[in-house]
C-alpha cells in the first residue's frame, strides 16, 4: 500500500491489537483460512504477509510497486516481487492462490475494475480493504467545508495524493455486482480500525464506517 510506505502514521496504523499488529490487518487475517496460499497485492513493507505467516501459517507471496518496499520485504525473507497491480496481475495464472488480498490499495489503482477481475481470476477468494468515501466526516468536509476531505486516514493534500479512485461502500458493492463477485463477508471499521460489529443496514455502514473490508468470491 503506497500510503504505508510514506511514513505518515495514520490512525489506522496507530491502532494496534494486543500482539502489536494493526487492527485492520488482524481483521483481514481473520478472513484467511489457515495454511492457505495467499497473494498480497500492494504489500508495502510486508507487515500483513508476516502476520499471516505467523498467525495463520499461510504460504504468502507479494507484489509491491515501490522498490524500497520490495527490498525491505525480500530482506525479511518474504517472497515479494516488484510490480504494478494495474499491469502485472495478468502474469499470474488462473487459480494460483486461495486468497488474493488488496489492502488499502484499491483507491490508488488506475483500473480498479480490471484489478478486481484479475484478483478473482487468480484467487478463489479476494479480500479488499479500502477507505469509505461515504463516511459522515468526509461528507461534512465537502458539504460544509467545500473542500476535498483530509482525515487522519486520508492525510494527503489533493494535489499530492496517490489515491485517485475513491469510492463509498455503496459504490464498492455496485462494482461487485458489475464484475459478478459474491460478497461473502463484509466488515466496516471505525476511524480507529475497530470493527462495527452489529447488524445494521448498508446505508448505516456507508455513513459510519471509515474503512471497509470485504471477502469476495466468484459468483459461479
Amino acid at each position: 500500500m503506497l500510503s504505508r510506505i510514506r511514513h505518515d502514521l495514520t490512525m489506522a496504523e496507530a491502532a494496534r491489537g494486543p500482539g502489536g499488529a494493526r487492527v485492520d490487518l488482524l481483521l483481514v487475517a481473520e478472513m484467511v483460512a489457515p495454511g492457505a496460499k495467499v497473494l498480497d497485492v500492494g504489500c508495502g513493507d510486508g507487515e500483513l504477509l508476516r502476520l499471516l505467516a505467523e498467525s495463520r501459517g499461510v504460504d504468502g507471496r507479494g507484489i509491491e510497486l515501490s522498490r524500497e518496499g520490495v527490498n525491505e520485504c525480500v530482506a525479511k525473507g518474504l517472497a515479494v516481487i516488484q510490480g504494478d497491480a494495474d499491469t502485472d496481475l495478468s502474469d499470474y495464472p488462473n487459480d494460483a492462490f486461495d486468497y488474493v488480498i488488496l489492502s488499502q490499495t484499491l483507491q490508488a489503482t488506475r483500473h480498479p475494475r480490471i484489478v478486481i477481475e484479475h484478483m478473482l481470476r487468480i484467487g478463489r477468494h479476494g479480500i479488499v480493504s479500502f477507505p469509505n468515501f461515504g463516511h459522515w466526516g468526509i461528507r461534512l468536509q465537502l458539504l460544509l467545508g467545500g473542500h476535498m476531505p483530509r482525515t487522519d486516514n486520508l492525510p494527503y493534500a489533493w494535489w499530492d495524493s496517490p489515491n485517485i479512485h475513491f469510492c463509498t461502500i455503496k459504490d464498492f458493492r455496485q462494482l461487485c455486482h458489475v464484475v459478478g463477485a459474491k460478497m461473502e463477508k463484509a466488515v466496516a471499521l471505525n476511524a480507529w480500525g475497530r470493527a462495527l460489529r452489529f447488524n445494521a443496514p448498508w446505508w448505516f455502514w456507508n455513513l459510519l464506517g471509515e474503512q471497509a473490508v470485504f471477502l469476495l468470491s466468484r459468483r459461479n
Partner: protein
Amino acid sequence: MIEAGLGVALDPAEREREADFPRSLVVRFGIDRPLRLDAGIDLAPFQIAYQTYGTLNAARSNAVLICHALTGDQHVANLHPVTHKPGWWETMVGPGRAIDTERYFVICPNVLGACMGTTGPASSNPVTGMPWGLDFPMITIRDMVRAQAMLLDHLGIASLFTIAGGSMGGMQVLQWCASYPQRVFSALPIATSTRHSAQNIAFHEVGRQAVMADPEWRHGRYFADGTNPRRGLAVARMGNHITYLSDAALHRKFGRRFQDRENPTFSFDADFQVESYLRHQGSSFVERFDANSYLYLTRAMDYFDLAADCDGVLAKAFKDTPTRFCVISFTSDWLFPTSESRATVHALNAGGARVSFAEIVTDKGHDAFLLDEPELFAIVRGFLEGAARTRGLDR
C-alpha cells in the same frame, strides 16, 4: 595499435601451469567416468578444480554452490594464486558476510572450458601432451552444470541449500534449476538472463574477432609456437569491460579528465584517464586468462537459451519447481537489464514457483554485483535467512 602498458608483471608459465596443476582442490575423473557433452562427445578423462570454505554439517544440508562469471574462477574468497589479488566475491562470501562461511559450506568450482584448473582448451590433451587448443570440444552452460553435478556427487552432496551467481554464473544457476530442480533448495540468479540477446552476442563476437585477428593467435596454436595473442585479448577485454560499466559511472569516475597531463598530446597515447584505465584492465587481464578459454566461454554464453529446450516456452523450464528463487537486477545494468530478470520472474510465476525479485538502484552497471552494494547484501542475507529457517539450518 596499443603500445606500452602491456607490462609483463606475472610469469606466463605460472598461469599455464595452473591449467593442469591448479593451486586449489582438484578432483580427477578417469576414463571410466566421462562427461557427456551437449556436442555429442564424451570428455574423459577430465578434472575439476574448486575451492571450499566453511564446514559441511552432519545433515549435509548447508552446502552453497557459487558459480563464477566469464572471467572469474574458483578463488571466490581467497587470495588469487596467480594475481595475488583478493577473491572476486569477498564482499559477498566470507565469515559473517551475506553468504556466511561460518554457517554454510561454500563450494566454488572453476567452470568447464576455463583455464584455472578445470579441463579446458588450456589444459593438456592426454593424447598429444600439448594443450587442447581448438581441438577442445565446444561446451555449453549445461555441460558446465553437468560437470558440477559430478563434483557434488563426488563430494557426497545430494541437495544444495543454495546456488548463487551473477552474469554467466547466474546462467549456471538457472540451468541448475532447470536441469536438477530436486537438488536445489534455493537459488540466487543475479544480474543475468535466460538467454543471451542479439546485442550480447554481438559484443562477444567483437571480442572473439579481436583475439582471432591477433597474428599471434595462430589459429589457437599459440602455445606450440611460443606466442600469445595478448594484444587481441586485451582489446577484447577492453570492449567487454565497457559493457560491464555504465555511462554515468564512467563519467563520474573519469569524465573527460586527462591522465597525468595538462593538455592533450595530439597523439594516440592514453591521454584520457578512461583510456589509461581501460588499457590497464586489458593488460592485467591477459596475465591471468587464456585466449582460447575466452573464445570457448563467450561461445557458451551465446548458445545459452533456457527456453529453447522447452519449445520456446520459458515457463515450462520451471514448471512445478520446488526451488525458492530470489532474482536480483540492477538499474544501470544495460548488459543484462532488469527486463531480462522480469521475464525470468514472469516465467517463474507462471510455473507456480516461490519468487522474490528485487531491482537495486545503482549507477555501477553490470559490475555492481561484484562491488560494495549494501542493499544487495541485505537482500541476499534476508533471503538466505528465510530459506535457512525453512530448511531447518540452525544458527
